């Protein structure tokens, strides 16, 4: 932008070369900060500062309508000792995570393995199987689900065809959560695509060598596919766990947290406290507890990973 032509000229005198060296030294940092300045401002003003404020709010009784008053750890002690809804929503959310993440990933892996072959029609299969994930989190899908799993919906008709008595999926506390789990598992597409990319990386030689040794397909899966894929599995587990903890839209629209709070996800409860009752302080405490729980879950997964994730370069290093 500026007169940088100078730097392109042959350095005539020592003074000029010093000046151009100085410019070289400062130009890049200055330009660098200019280029990243949108994000830097965004990060400081819209992420970091809100996080600091959020910590502060969590120790106040802030209600949006009145200025915040410091109340110490009252919100936290209330949450842990006197809030049965918190305990319920946390329990439901954990149950949801524990059910949906493994089911989703197992489906994703199985289908990815089916798709991992050079064959006619693969692109079409992949398109069809990925499709539900494309229309993923929209309200449209929630409306579809609400209809399909209604008392007179097609799901009951179809299982009735097999002689199974239908249930009131959405209005029965025993089944409402599984309705949501099925929806989330149906959308395993993006995990599947990541698995597929990982499967394509595994060298054919490994399978050929083990076939020569007479290993069965199942043996190959456990001794080649799974170990080689474990870093990607770790990535998917972490990603899906973090996402599942924040489940909101579908529970909000399909079941509204009900019946009898059986699908009252943590994010839903937080939303109700913040925007239903305008208890911004209390909601901030809930948000920090959620962050710590997600952080702990992620840490746990990473800690456990040394027992089940296999890194090829490490093995080579030790050998």
């Amino acid at each position, binding site marked *: 932008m500026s007169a940088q032509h100078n730097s392109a000229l042959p350095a005539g005198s020592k003074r000029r070369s010093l000046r151009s060296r100085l410019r070289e030294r400062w130009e890049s940092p200055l330009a660098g900060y200019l*280029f990243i300045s949108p994000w830097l401002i965004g990060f400081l003003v819209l992420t970091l500062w809100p996080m600091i404020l959020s910590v502060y709010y969590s120790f106040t009784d802030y209600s949006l309508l009145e200025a915040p008053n410091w109340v110490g750890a009252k919100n936290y002690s209330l949450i842990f000792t006197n809030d049965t809804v918190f305990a319920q929503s946390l329990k439901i959310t954990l149950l949801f995570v524990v059910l949906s993440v493994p089911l989703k990933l197992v489906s994703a892996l199985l289908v990815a393995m089916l798709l991992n072959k050079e064959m006619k029609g693969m692109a079409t299969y*992949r398109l069809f199987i990925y499709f539900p994930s494309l229309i993923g989190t929209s309200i449209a899908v929630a*409306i579809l689900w609400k*209809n399909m799993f209604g008392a007179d919906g*097609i799901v009951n*008709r179809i299982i009735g065809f097999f002689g199974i008595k239908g249930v009131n999926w959405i209005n029965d506390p025993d089944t409402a959560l599984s309705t949501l789990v099925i929806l989330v598992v149906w959308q395993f597409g993006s995990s599947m695509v990541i698995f597929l990319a990982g499967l394509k990386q595994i060298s054919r030689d490994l399978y050929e060598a083990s076939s020569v040794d007479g290993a069965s397909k199942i043996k190959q899966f456990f001794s080649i596919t799974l170990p080689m894929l474990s870093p990607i599995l770790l*990535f998917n587990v972490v990603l899906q766990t973090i996402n599942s903890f924040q489940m909101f839209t579908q529970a909000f629209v399909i079941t509204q947290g009900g019946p009898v709070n059986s699908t009252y996800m943590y994010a839903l409860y937080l939303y109700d406290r913040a925007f239903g009752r305008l208890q911004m302080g209390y909601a901030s405490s809930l948000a920090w507890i959620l962050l710590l729980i997600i952080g702990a879950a992620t840490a746990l997964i990473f800690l456990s990973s040394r027992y089940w994730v296999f890194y090829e370069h490490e093995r080579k290093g030790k050998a």
Partner: protein
Amino acid sequence: MSFSLNRGTWKRHLLLLASSFAMMYPVFWWIGASLKTNAEMGSPSLFPGAPQWRNYIDGWTAIPSYSFTHFYMSTFELVFGVVLLSLVSCSLVAFGFARLDFPLKKIWFGLVLVTLMLPSQVTLVPQYVMFNAFGWVNTYLPFWAPSSLGVGVGGSFFIFLLVQFIRGIPRELDESAKIDGCSYFGIYWRIVLPLTKPALVTVGIYAFLWNWDDFFGHLIYINSVDKYTIQLALRLFMDTQSAMEWGQMLAMSLLSVVPAIIIFLLAQRHFVEGIAATGIKG
């Protein structure tokens, strides 16, 4: 065409066909059901007895005083603004991280990656308080402003994706442009940006889809019906119906996913590769 299918291939085809059917059945049923009467709704059949095209016509104007045309225009206004601003801000930032050296760069970039994983609930309340104080509630500014700073929906992901891509562009091009007297902005604008086009397309697609699908943000920041997006309009439709007009509702919700489907089909290759590269959503 070769028909030399051995036993293994047959089995695989069969399993894949079954999976595809299981995955697509709800979608096909949805299309059929959008043309059904309420009485037919419980039928697992994919085809309506007599197609009720009225579902589309009546559904389009079912919400009093605003037709779906209005909601689509609003949503496009919001989403295109976000897409455009995200492309500009994220590409500038990514160029800075990928090509320039400056103190603390590693720390800042590390923070980009950290925010990738940060649950939005933690900043939710203070951000709302802030935007509320600015008088931005019930405008699209709570979506446009963060996007223009690269911290909107998917912002960190876009920066990360673009940085990875720009790192793959040979630096010799920059060097020779620099010798020719090109400024850093010139290098960004004339050298790097044109070569980054495939990644920019990916970013544009994601920004479109995620903001089109976003419900939580819309729910919190938009509260008058004349500013409603499609997502909010569909929810309103569902909540205000005393006698559920399922056919109309399914028709309108089906239309609401059409833009996503069109974009997906047009740019399928980009899309799948993008997910494979990082796979952050879903």
